[in-house]
């Protein structure tokens, strides 16, 4: 649709913000801040989808942007905050296998790795100008999310790492549009269910079994009916 180079610049600025949020997720320890940063990241990715919609005109992207905001910027943090509030111990401190400095170094190494391996194959794949930076940043975001899963001990942070991975994959998929909307919708629904399940399970690790089974019943049956 609109084809200004301004849109490309805006996309690049949004990429910068994505990278910033990724770096913060890797290093920050307080759980509530992590959730907020994740919300911001989802907003930014929805903004990227919107800008791409302005550029391409494909309605799927617009719907995807709205869906991302609804599910990832509101629903998921809402669910997670509720679960987190009902956990008896209010936890702010984090335990980790890798220090924050190490995590940042590994994160930068990952970005370079993705850049190097993708630069050999990918530029041929699409005519979209922002495809290559988008692909690199999307996949590196996914890899950094995976790093969060494996190097942190807290379950909520692991779930957040998984959510970040999802965001990275979503960012990557935005540039190869035209995956039919039904598929995208189902994928997002799937992932939301997964998150809720994981959160409920995480809740179950800390509390007594009885409360957990109560919660499990009410949550999952609410979904199935």
């Amino acid at each position, binding site marked *: 649709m609109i084809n200004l180079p*301004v849109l490309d*610049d805006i996309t*690049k*600025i949004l*990429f*910068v913000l994505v*990278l*910033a949020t990724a*770096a*913060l997720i890797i*290093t920050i320890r307080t759980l509530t801040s992590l959730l907020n940063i994740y919300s911001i990241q989802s907003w930014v990715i929805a903004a990227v989808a919107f800008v791409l919609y302005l550029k391409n005109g494909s309605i799927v992207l617009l719907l995807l942007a709205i869906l991302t905001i609804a599910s990832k910027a509101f629903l998921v943090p809402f669910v997670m905050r509720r679960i987190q509030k009902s956990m008896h111990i209010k936890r702010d401190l984090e335990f980790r296998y890798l220090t*924050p*400095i190490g995590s*940042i*170094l590994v*994160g*930068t190494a990952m*970005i*370079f790795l993705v*850049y190097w391996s993708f630069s050999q194959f990918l530029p041929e794949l699409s005519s979209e100008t922002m495809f*290559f*930076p988008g692909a*690199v940043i999307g996949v590196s975001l996914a890899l950094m999310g995976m790093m969060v899963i494996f190097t942190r001990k807290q379950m909520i942070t692991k779930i957040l790492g998984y959510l970040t991975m999802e965001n990275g994959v979503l960012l990557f998929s935005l540039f190869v549009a035209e995956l039919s909307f039904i598929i995208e919708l189902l994928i997002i629904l799937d992932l939301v269910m997964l998150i809720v399940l994981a959160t409920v399970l995480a809740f179950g690790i800390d509390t007594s079994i009885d409360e957990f089974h109560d919660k499990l019943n009410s949550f999952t049956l609410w979904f199935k009916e």
Partner: protein
Amino acid sequence: MSFIIYALLNTAFVMLISPLFVSLIKKVKAYTQGRQGPPLLQTYYMLLKLLKKERVYSDNTSLIMRITPYINIVCVLVASLCVPVVYIPAQIAGFGSIILFLYLLVFAKFFMALAGLDAGSTFGGMGSSREMTVSAVIEPVIIIVFAALGLLLKTTNLYDMFTTSLNSSLFINPSTLLISLSLFIILIVETARIPVDNPETHLELTMIHEAMILEYSGSDLAMMEMSHAVKQTILMAVFINILIPWGLTSAPNALTVSISAVTFIIKGMVLAVAVGFFESMFAKSRLFRLPNLFMLAFFFSFSTILFELLK
């Protein structure tokens, strides 16, 4: 000749507005804490008051203590010549080089650390050692950040950097945004703001910068405070003139210079408010957690380099 005019103008301007920014940050912090805070001109009053008071030296101090305030203020003012605030002058040999800029600041910091040790009190020694620890970790990061900046703007001369960003396309360059995140972190560190160091505390556990100037009094203290304020202003100027250079001019005449001065004051005030808010959001970090913050700056500069490659 034109350089002398530039030098006088720049230095006078910087010295005049630095205390304003300091009080503005204090005021913002006070508002966020729910109190009124000191009036905006308070720092001016403080400096004037200190200039009139006598200096007292401890018996155990040496020459270092007496010359450090002068070295400090001179180094910082010369460094301020490297950072055009009102207008960008024509090139003059050597000035504007980023290496010169950084090393002048480090030179001043070094003497300040020495002076902290000089009085032989535990506070001073502790402050100096902490300052040197933080410095040892942040200096490589600063070098990388400025290297990324140099790669981005294709020059290591601050005058040329400002000219390039002034002449570049109207919209914010995304790599500049990324590097300005790093520059912001460096601003926080070098001017000893929360979360690195609390500039308003006098508690032994939390002092870094304050500990080193604890022994000073009278006009010495005025000079140290002034040099701190000027250092803050020129670092803010680097940040502002790279990110949002509009208003700055390289063609000096009365109109453009005054526009540039006014816009700089406005931009500086906005940045000071931002710094104030940033300070209010955090608590002072423990010393060994500081490298995490620096790593963020490192990460952003690395990403800038990557972004440049990705283009």
